[in-house]
């Protein structure tokens, strides 16, 4: 559950990761990269004039419908990069970045969504709002997006020319500060303008918080995780308690022979820890295997095992193990060796 959630969160922040800007300026109402609120052009000039800003460039982010050569329509995400600097452009695996300045030029991202554009090659043409588009480069990115749409990169000017937009067109301003120490000042100054400047990490956190707390995904995942935990606890606790009950006479016999209560407690803890850790290892291994298979079969499958997931699962397993042991330990401590004699 938590791996799926981690995968969703990573994919939700894919654009922020791929563009890689250190500081993002946006409307305060933005809480998700795709739901951007365009800003007037003068904000770009104002940001550029803030002390500590090395440079600032506009970024267009929008959606469009592409008509493929097969006649099919496919929704895409279009990123418009600053014409002069092409700041945040992806790494090309085919083609030349300068070709983006050619007529109708677009760069397509080769990710899990790539086949949805009929696996285009260099020179493949398509239609976008009655405009002709040509693939001039194929790029790789660190992370693909959450919503299962292919991504096209072009210049900012071409993006706002091809795609119908509102009066304002700058979705984000990407800022390169002169130094890390300047970021706080830049954020203060941007706030005075009535906008929001976030570091890459802060923006990713904001997006994550949006999905966690405002979409219901977080609550549902939390509930499913809690239910899984309770089911695991009840099954494990019951199994372990049954094991203790089945062997209670043996524990009594050990006590009669001369085993001390703390030795039996250590024995039970060792057994439960060993079982718990074996289960944890098998669980993590099996999950990894299933996720690997799922990712091969389902390109959009959002799942990712992070150290946080592993740590959380480990803590949960330890809590389950601890509670299960505690129930068994109480029973074993209470058993009287006399009961063994009495039969």
């Amino acid at each position: 559950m938590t791996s799926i959630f981690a995968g969703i969160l990573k994919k939700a922040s894919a654009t922020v990761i791929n563009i890689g800007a250190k500081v993002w300026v946006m409307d305060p109402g933005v809480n998700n990269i795709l739901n951007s609120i365009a800003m007037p052009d003068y904000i770009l000039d104002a940001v550029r004039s803030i002390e500590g800003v090395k440079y600032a460039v506009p970024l267009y982010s929008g959606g469009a419908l592409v008509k493929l050569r097969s006649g099919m329509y496919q929704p895409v995400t279009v990123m418009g990069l600053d014409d002069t600097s092409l700041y945040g452009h992806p790494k090309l695996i085919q083609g030349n970045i300068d070709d983006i300045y050619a007529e109708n030029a677009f760069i397509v991202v080769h990710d899990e969504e790539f086949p949805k554009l009929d696996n285009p090659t260099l020179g493949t043409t398509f239609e976008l709002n009655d405009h002709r588009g040509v693939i001039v480069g194929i790029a790789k990115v660190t992370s693909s997006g959450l919503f299962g749409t292919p991504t096209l990169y072009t210049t900012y000017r071409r993006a706002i020319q091809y795609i119908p937009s509102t009066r304002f067109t700058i979705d984000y301003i990407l800022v390169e500060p002169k130094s890390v120490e300047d970021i706080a000042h830049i954020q203060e100054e941007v706030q005075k303008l009535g906008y929001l400047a976030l570091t890459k990490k802060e923006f990713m956190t904001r997006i994550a918080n949006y999905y966690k707390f405002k979409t219901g995904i977080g609550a549902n995942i939390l509930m499913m995780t809690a239910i899984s935990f309770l089911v695991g606890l009840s099954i494990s606790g019951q199994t372990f308690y049954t094991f203790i009950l089945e062997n209670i006479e043996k524990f009594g016999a050990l006590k009669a022979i001369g085993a001390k209560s703390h030795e039996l407690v250590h024995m039970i803890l060792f057994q439960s820890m060993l079982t718990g850790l074996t289960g944890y290892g098998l669980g993590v291994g099996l999950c990894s295997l299933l996720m690997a298979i799922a990712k091969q079969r389902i390109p959009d499958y959002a799942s990712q095992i992070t150290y946080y997931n592993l740590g959380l699962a480990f803590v949960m397993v330890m809590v389950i193990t601890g509670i299960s042991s505690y129930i068994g330990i109480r029973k074993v401590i209470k058993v009287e060796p006399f009961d063994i004699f009495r039969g």
Partner: protein
Amino acid sequence: MIFSGVDMADVAVQADHLEKWFGAGRIKTYAVRDVSFAAHLGEMLYIVGPSGSGKTTLLSIISGILKPDSGAVLVEGKDIWGMSPGQIADFRLNTVGFVFQDYHLFPRLTTAENVAIPLLLKKQGWKESIDEAMKYLDAVGLTDRAQLPPVKLSGGEQQRVAIARAIVGRPDLLILDEPTASLDGDTGRKIIDFVKQHILDEKRCIIIVTHDSRIFEYSDRILKMEDGRIVDIGKGGISEE
């Protein structure tokens, strides 16, 4: 002391006015009532009596398992019920060997590992304990069964494994609870004969709780109980019939 005529030097266990009751008020029931006796080193003492006569309760009290409500138990001169719980556990581990009625062998362990348990509880090393256990398995004639789990053994063999486990720690006091209850007459007699011939010596006392009259002939003395009291202490060596 109650046994003024007895040579105290060879007394292994001395029970002095033991009482044990369960419940309180109107439902207060005496399991053991004013019981005093002595068991000697080199002696095989039987405690016999009908079900509910208090044999097992008495056995539990003198072996450090059940605390009496009054009276004292001296084993090798030490008042065991004046000890702390940890000391009593050590006393059971070092001084007493138990053979339970249902053996209570551990089915997941091999026969040798079962025998080695008291040594492992004494913090002896694994290999050393197994080697020692093998000697005692040899003594009870089960060397070839060492690597088998107890469930693969017959009832008589399991009983011998339980005896090997009880004596592997070289206890001075060996307690056998109904040792022949699950065995046929022949096997039962063989087991007790084996215990008398090979386990009993002048440094050890064996106390057996039983109501199997077929093995009475092996006893040195028979202590008969009824309603929690000792009603007779007789000389053993003869069958009740």
